[in-house]
């Protein structure tokens, strides 16, 4: 990807970070300016799901707070200028979080975000962070990432579309998936 001269790049990022700060997305005192990139942590609030521990059945809990690491590299504002890494645990077909429950190996943090794929000249940090918020609320099970946890989430959200699912379960309530016929194992003697 091409890059802009350092001064132009820096001025643009400072302006965009100012907007994010005003919207209270950025965690306090986490912005670090480096020669080749700018790092910071972002907190977003929107309703997502996590899986509950130590149950054989798939049961979900609603959560409202998410933590994401953002690194802006020298390619910004060209496509590929923003590296996102999802840290906090989440059960989502398009997000592979770093902290996965019941897993010793950390996840990759990858996020499959449409706005990054279809980067336009008007795209910026603000629209990216806001679209992350929307992504949590509207998982896209038709295009999951290729990881176990993500395909599991895709399968789940295909069976239970999110809007319907939210209507039937109040906020904070524990959600358990009903037993499927597949889960019943008949052993022949």
């Amino acid at each position, binding site marked *: 990807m*091409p*890059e802009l*001269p350092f001064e*132009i790049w820096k001025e643009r990022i400072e302006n965009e970070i100012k907007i994010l700060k005003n919207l209270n997305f950025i965690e306090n005192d986490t912005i670090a300016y480096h020669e080749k990139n700018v790092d910071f942590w972002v907190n977003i609030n929107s309703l997502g799901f996590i899986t509950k521990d130590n149950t054989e059945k798939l049961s979900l809990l609603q959560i409202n707070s998410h933590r994401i690491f953002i690194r802006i590299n020298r390619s910004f504002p060209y496509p590929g200028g923003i590296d996102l890494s999802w840290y906090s645990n989440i059960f989502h077909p398009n997000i592979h979080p770093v902290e996965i429950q019941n897993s010793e190996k950390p996840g990759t943090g990858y996020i499959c975000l449409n706005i990054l*794929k279809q980067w336009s000249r008007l795209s910026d940090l603000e629209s990216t962070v806001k679209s992350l918020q929307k992504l949590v609320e509207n998982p896209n099970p038709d295009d999951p990432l290729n990881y176990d946890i993500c395909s599991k989430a895709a399968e789940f959200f295909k069976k239970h579309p999110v809007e319907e699912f939210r209507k039937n379960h109040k906020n904070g309530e524990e959600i358990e998936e009903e037993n499927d016929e597949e889960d019943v194992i008949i052993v022949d003697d």
Partner: protein
Amino acid sequence: MTTQKDYQDIEVIDKESIDTDIFDRQKRIHGWDQNKVSNAKVMVIGVGATGNEVVKNLVLSGVGTIYIIDFDFIEMSNLNRCVLFNCKAAENNEYKVDVVKEACKILNPDVKIIPIKKDLNAIDKNLYKECNVICSCLDNVEARLEANNYSYYYDVPFIDSGIDEYFGTVQAVYSKVKESACLQCAISDKDLEIMWNKFSCTGQEITSEDQETTRKIASIITTTSIIGGIQSQQILKFLLDIDYFRKYGKWSRQIGEPLIGKQLLYNGLMNRFKIIEKLKDPNCWTCSYKKPIS
């Protein structure tokens, strides 16, 4: 119609050096100053088909120092359109820049060629400031834009070219000409999408061999030499006339105006040249930046 004064100008040239001075014939051009050309530093990014033509033209005109940047090796399939390459180098898969340097030594030993075997984004950015003119003979949008961005920022004239079969374009960018467009001004969302399609959804570069990410374009030497010729002409215009422009704010009558903010389109099928004015984007990432006054 030539005037009396024109004849007088030609008579000024030393008669003894008519056959011995390499640059005698070009010195006869009005407004030509060989010192300006001989002291100039020009950067040529990419020495493929067009790059070969440009370097050849600059070397023969006696440009003092030429930086050539290319990290690629010579292939057999380059030889149909590259005047400075040879079969032996292609067999040994040598660096393009090394072979061009050797070939230029034979053409004109006085010219200093500095080869740089690096990707464009790995070079020292101060090199842009050192050069009088930067010209790109590249095959991809990314590197063009990067050269455009840095040249614009450092106020160095930049000339871009592109070829495809019988078609070609040349466009010059110079920040000191007000209201003139740069390459970034014309970049659309579609261009950004094409650039980004080389990468996967999570931002890792697609590197597998069977997924050919760059299209090989058809090209022949007739088109490249026409476009390379026009491009070298623009370089010489900048070298000879930039002092005049800085002083008076316009281009001199003898040398003429370069194609700044305009794009020349060559159509080899219809034998046509067309010049279109490029629109400046007021929100352009590169040229809308205002430098702080120090």
